[in-house]
């Protein structure tokens, strides 16, 4: 069979930066996919999944620098000798963070852009775009900026659906999608007959029987593994692509301590277009316990989180916080002071030149002495496995940036902590480890996730949202 994608002897390393020497990322990596196959590449955080996708798309080292050896052929032509814009019918990529990929002001303009570049006639573009958007239930006239995290991801997929390139690269695209959308997307890919490479830090049961090949990315190489066997499942656990057997964890007296935060009769709607309404009659975050919030894309999970931490003001309703005795009604500033909200995108929450400044920022504002600060920073570097105090956060790997972001809020010591899709890009076991660092008798945790297995494992109670209501 003709191969659609052929990689031979790929070696790559990024350029060195001060305080952050680069190690070789890939060593003699080989991969061959016949046309029409769906391949899954499982890789731990920082194993190089995104870089691999970008290399295959011809974006790295073109935009990043670094040294590359080996050959890559897509549709029988070398990727290294052509420019990405010449190959948009051959290869398409969905970025791990789709927000970085969207640059127009309307969803339909977004999906049409590549077709306009190809010079298609207007009528044909319109048909393609309408079909792509409606198959993922996306609105044509919304501003992509106002979409929820998962909806943005779906829009980036719709952009590929409109072009239908021969090879699809989906970089952790199945994260942050609800289970219905995941299944629908995978079935569509199978029906399309295209060659697809999916990367993931997590094994979803729906992959079983639906992907043709499974590879493990580690140590700079790809190794093919055979799903369905007992050794395969052992491997998934060992490498952290799946949660291990239920371990007794130090579960606090979940809920017995009463509520630490309680919301009553919350109502909220975004200004302007759109019919989204949030209506939560009652919500309770247990003291010393964990509340999981689950629900489809766009069901209002992040919106709820932004209200609870005081970033959004509800139209109606109150949020009450209990320091010791009675619940007190809180205004928005007081909420921000007590509720930490860990964004899904770590880059929005880390912004200083070094890890040291990043961690100490809040402590210095609190007026702590330098000696005590230094001691606490050392502790944080150790427990969050950070690469050292002088490293520049912007150049750390995704996993390390997420751990740094968590460490920042850990040092701030807020009584309530909300994790928005904290497991995305990290894998469940790694996230559980992070979460355990936050467990405390006096603290309430909220975990927003699409992983129901994870939710049932870590939470004392689960709330499911559906179209802005508690289901």
């Amino acid at each position, binding site marked *: 069979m003709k191969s659609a994608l052929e990689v031979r002897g790929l070696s790559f390393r990024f350029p060195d930066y001060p305080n952050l020497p680069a190690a070789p990322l890939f060593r003699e990596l080989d991969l061959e996919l016949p046309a029409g196959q769906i391949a899954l590449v499982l890789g731990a955080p920082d194993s190089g999944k995104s870089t691999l996708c*970008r290399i295959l*798309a011809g*974006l790295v080292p073109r*935009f*990043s620098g670094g040294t590359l050896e080996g050959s890559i052929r897509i549709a029988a032509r070398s990727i290294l000798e052509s*420019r*990405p*814009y010449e190959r*948009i019918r051959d290869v*398409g*990529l969905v*970025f791990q963070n789709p927000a*970085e*990929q*969207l*640059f*127009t*002001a*309307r969803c*339909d*303009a977004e999906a*049409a*852009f*590549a*077709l*306009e*570049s*190809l*010079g298609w*006639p*207007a009528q044909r*573009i*319109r048909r393609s*775009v309408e079909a792509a958007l409606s198959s993922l239930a996306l609105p044509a006239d919304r*501003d992509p*900026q106002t979409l929820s995290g998962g909806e943005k991801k779906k829009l980036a997929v719709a*952009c590929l659906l409109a072009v239908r390139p021969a090879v699809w690269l989906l970089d952790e695209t199945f994260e942050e999608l609800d289970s219905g959308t995941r299944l629908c997307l995978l079935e569509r890919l199978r029906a399309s007959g295209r060659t697809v490479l999916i990367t993931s830090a997590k094994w979803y049961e729906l992959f079983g029987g639906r992907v043709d090949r499974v590879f493990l990315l580690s140590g700079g190489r790809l190794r093919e593994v055979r799903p369905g066997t007992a050794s395969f499942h052992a491997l998934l656990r060992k490498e952290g692509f799946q949660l291990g057997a239920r371990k007794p964890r130090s579960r606090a007296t979940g809920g017995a301590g009463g509520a630490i935060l309680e919301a009553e009769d919350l109502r909220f709607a975004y200004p302007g277009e759109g019919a989204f309404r949030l209506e939560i009659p009652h919500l309770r975050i247990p003291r010393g316990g964990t509340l999981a919030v689950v629900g489809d894309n766009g069901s209002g999970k992040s919106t709820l989180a932004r209200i609870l*931490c005081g*970033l959004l003001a509800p139209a109606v309703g109150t949020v009450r916080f209990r320091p010791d005795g009675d619940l007190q009604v809180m205004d928005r*500033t*007081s909420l*921000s*002071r*007590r509720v*930490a*909200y860990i*964004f899904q995108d770590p*880059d*929005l*929450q880390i*912004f*200083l030149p070094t890890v040291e400044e990043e961690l100490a*920022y*809040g402590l210095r*504002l*609190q*007026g702590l002495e330098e000696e005590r600060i230094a001691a606490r920073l050392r502790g944080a570097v150790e427990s969050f496995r950070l690469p050292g105090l002088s490293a520049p956060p*912007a150049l750390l790997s995704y996993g390390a940036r997420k751990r740094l972001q968590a460490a920042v*809020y850990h040092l*701030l010591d807020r009584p309530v902590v909300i994790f928005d899709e904290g497991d995305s890009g990290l894998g469940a076991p790694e996230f559980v480890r992070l979460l355990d660092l936050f467990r405390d008798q006096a603290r309430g945790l909220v975990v927003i996730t699409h992983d129901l297995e994870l939710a049932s494992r870590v939470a004392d109670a689960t709330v499911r949202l559906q179209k802005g209501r508690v289901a």
Partner: protein
Amino acid sequence: MDPRCKLPLAVLFTVLFFLPLPLVLLGAYLGALSLAIWLGLGFRELVRPLRTIAPLLLLVLLLTPPFQRGGQAYLRIGGLTLLSADGVREAARLALRLTGVTFAFFVLLRSTAPADLILALRAFGLPFGAGLVVSVALQYVPGLKGLFDQVQDAHRLRRAGNGAPPARGLQVVRSLLPQLTSVLILSIRRIPILAMALEMRGVGRTNRRSSMRRLPQGRRLVLSSLAAAAVGLGAVVAIFLFP
């Protein structure tokens, strides 16, 4: 109205506001524009641009008179004329100009989808490459605003209640500094990523680009052009009616 007609009108009004015309006429133009905004877009849209330029307007109104001291003096302190007929006239003229030009472009941008504006620019012969740059810039700037909002939210959460007193005066500027730095770092990080995203969507190809949106042809274009010509002509004729 068709963006191909709105564009020349906006340019015409900009020119008009810069001609040495009697104050009454400038006022009349501004009145007409405001009326158009009010009727077309609503009262709130009339206040919005005003609020943005309010600090600038205030500066103009306060600082112009002391430097234009001719004519009858209205207010003197010691031997110094602070407010005089010329000063008031000049201040009013500058303020009208500023507001007028702002309104003209506000109407244009507010009532036209960016994509249509680009199409109109292209209809007037803007080369494709430049059109693309303008279009990406027009759409990316609101994106940066979104980025800034998110960074601001992040900072608010992290700073809140660390015993730090609320910032005042110069402190506000200082406390903005880390936020601006993070936006800067983020946008610099995003530039290569944006370039990647653009190339993955075919920016750089040499073939002719097409467009999904089309500006209407035929009757609607003719009607639009007639309306625009009437408004433009009216505005110009008015100049000669006020000798």
